[in-house]
């Protein structure tokens, strides 16, 4: 499969829908956290939706994936049932993992995900194993690791990229560099990455891994780079590394997530009057959903009405999923002793 020149209408709408599914899910999640429906700390993907939604567009059902503590977007983009994902985060018995994983370890093995590690470099090593298995199988499958810039601070990332390159394993390293504009631990926010390399893609390049750096908010840019990379991987030429750069979303800057930029209104894409003054920069230049909608309208691939319709359907499904989770039972305490071994 060679890199396609660009995304058509159907694929674009599919990707937009995925992005909206993720956005509505996480907007609801912040509310549910506020309602104390779950008490754990959690990590949002808002602002990075373009990356997951575009990456999965290049994947086959038999491809493998790994993700991190910031996994909601990846799991949902791959088609996980939002109701079961909510249930997992709420610790319900109906969750994707029966409530044993929670937000930090949510995984959908039925859609190719390996275990979700919250040790930031863990997913890179596991994805290496997925790539090893794919190479042994010999059917052109790939293994994708979604990880943040901070994962590259752990030595396993270097070790894994080295082995992937040495053995020409079909590993697709998707580095979501969401560090731009991050507050950092020293100022009371999330840790921001502390890496000496001026370009993260340069770390992979030093191991002779084919690398690209793209704007992680730009669906077309991510898709072009990843589809070419995946095609390269499938043809047996070894691993690829794509650094997708995004700005740190305002709501993820404090230690506890906040919906600081409000509930997304797709009409902000065409009606500047809807954009609140306070976060004009975000809504105008950062929000990948609004950026993509503006582009689709500019290219006349879709109409405003079609976008509003997709969003309305996504929101309706989200409400149903939310109700499913909230009305789901909790697991019995004693089942904690089960399923230690297969």
């Amino acid at each position, binding site marked *: 499969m060679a890199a396609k020149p660009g995304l058509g209408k159907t694929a674009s709408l599919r990707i937009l829908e995925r992005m909206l599914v993720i956005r509505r899910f996480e907007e609801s999640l912040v509310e549910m956290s506020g309602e104390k429906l779950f008490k754990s700390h959690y990590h949002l993907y808002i602002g990075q939706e373009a990356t997951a939604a575009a990456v999965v567009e290049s994947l086959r059902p038999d491809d493998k994936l790994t993700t991190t503590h910031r996994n909601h977007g990846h799991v949902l983009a791959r088609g996980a049932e939002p109701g079961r994902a909510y249930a997992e985060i709420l610790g319900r018995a109906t969750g994707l993992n029966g409530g044993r994983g929670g937000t930090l370890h949510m995984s959908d093995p039925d859609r190719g995900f390996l275990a979700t590690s919250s*040790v930031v470099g863990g997913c890179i090593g596991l994805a290496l194993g997925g790539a090893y298995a794919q190479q042994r199988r010999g059917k052109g499958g790939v293994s994708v690791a979604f990880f943040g810039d901070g994962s590259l601070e752990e030595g396993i990332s270097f070790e894994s990229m080295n082995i992937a390159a040495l053995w020409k394993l079909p590993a697709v390293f998707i580095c979501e560099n969401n560090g731009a504009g991050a507050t950092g631990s020293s100022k009371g926010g999330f840790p921001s990455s502390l890496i000496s390399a001026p370009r993260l893609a340069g770390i992979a390049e030093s191991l002779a891994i084919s690398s690209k750096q793209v704007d992680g908010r730009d669906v077309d840019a991510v898709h072009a780079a990843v589809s070419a990379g995946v095609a390269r991987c499938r043809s047996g030429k070894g691993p690829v590394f794509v650094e997708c750069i995004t700005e740190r979303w305002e709501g993820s800057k404090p230690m506890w997530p906040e919906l600081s930029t409000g509930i997304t209104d797709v009409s902000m894409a065409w009606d500047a009057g809807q954009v609140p003054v306070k976060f004009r920069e975000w809504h105008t230049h950062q929000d990948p959903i609004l950026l993509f909608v503006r582009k689709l309208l500019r290219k006349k691939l879709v109409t405003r009405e079609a976008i509003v319709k997709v969003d309305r359907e996504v929101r309706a499904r989200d409400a149903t999923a939310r109700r499913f989770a909230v009305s789901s039972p909790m697991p019995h305490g004693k089942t904690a002793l089960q399923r230690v071994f297969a």
Partner: protein
Amino acid sequence: MRKITYSQAFVEGLDYCMRKMRNFSLVGNEVMGLGPHRVHLERIWKTYPDRVRFPPTSEAAFSALAAGAAMSGEHVFCHLGAASFSFLSMTSIANEAATAHYASGGKIKVPVVFHMLHGLRIGGGTQHSVSPQAMYWNVPGLQIVLPSCARDAKGLVATAGLSENPTVMFTHDLLIGLEGEVPEKDYEIPFGKADIKRRGKDVTLVATSWMVQVSLEAAKILADEGIDVEVVDPRTLVPFDKKTLIASVAKTGRLVVADETHLSCGVTAEISAIVAEEAFQYLKAPILRVARPDVPTPFSRPLEDFITPTKEKIADAVRRVMRKP
């Protein structure tokens, strides 16, 4: 019956897994160490060239590779070298392999074996003498396997390789060249079934791995003194065969536990606790432990000898439990 070395028997177990499962592969070289017995592995490399990989010195990554591949449908036997190197793999073993089945709600299986060389091997010093099996026993989700002889090695490797669960397997350096009777045919030894390596009526002596051989030597010395020792080899710490252990203690009323893990929170501590909690009524004397003291392992021979559980130290502990009414 024919006699072969532990290393030859171990390789026969690996060969069985190779023949039995096309998706079984070996990651990590020198499974039987860098000594003369390494040659037995050549048979595997030559017969299955596509199924043996020699990774770089990247313990964290290649053990994660093994775990991730296992989650993707492969069976992987991953050799880590000296057990102290496994600390570099700890995240892949303890954080990933051990937890994946549980945290996924039972959806993910991790059929991987992490094999390492452990124990006081004479001159290994601080970083080539480690016996971390008790540390791994503190990681729920891992099976722990310790063959003590050639015959067990062959059958336990087979069971570990075929298992659907992550397994940590320890070979003692001093066992590698040890000869013993080993059947030619293929066989698997079930996990969680202790083996009574010597029957006796006076004292139960529990040991694993190389300590089984040392305990059998101690039992010989004691037999000459009229003390009849029963040597129980659990063979796997997880799952642990409490039944055989307690039945033996019920018969003898006395327990000595010998092990190379450190005294505090070591293998001897857990086995003693099991008996103290569940078989106290049978005990005629306090439980005694012969373990490695809580110090790093020194290089110099008299220093290393001082901390090594030997047949003399074990025999002495048995005499002491015999003297106590």
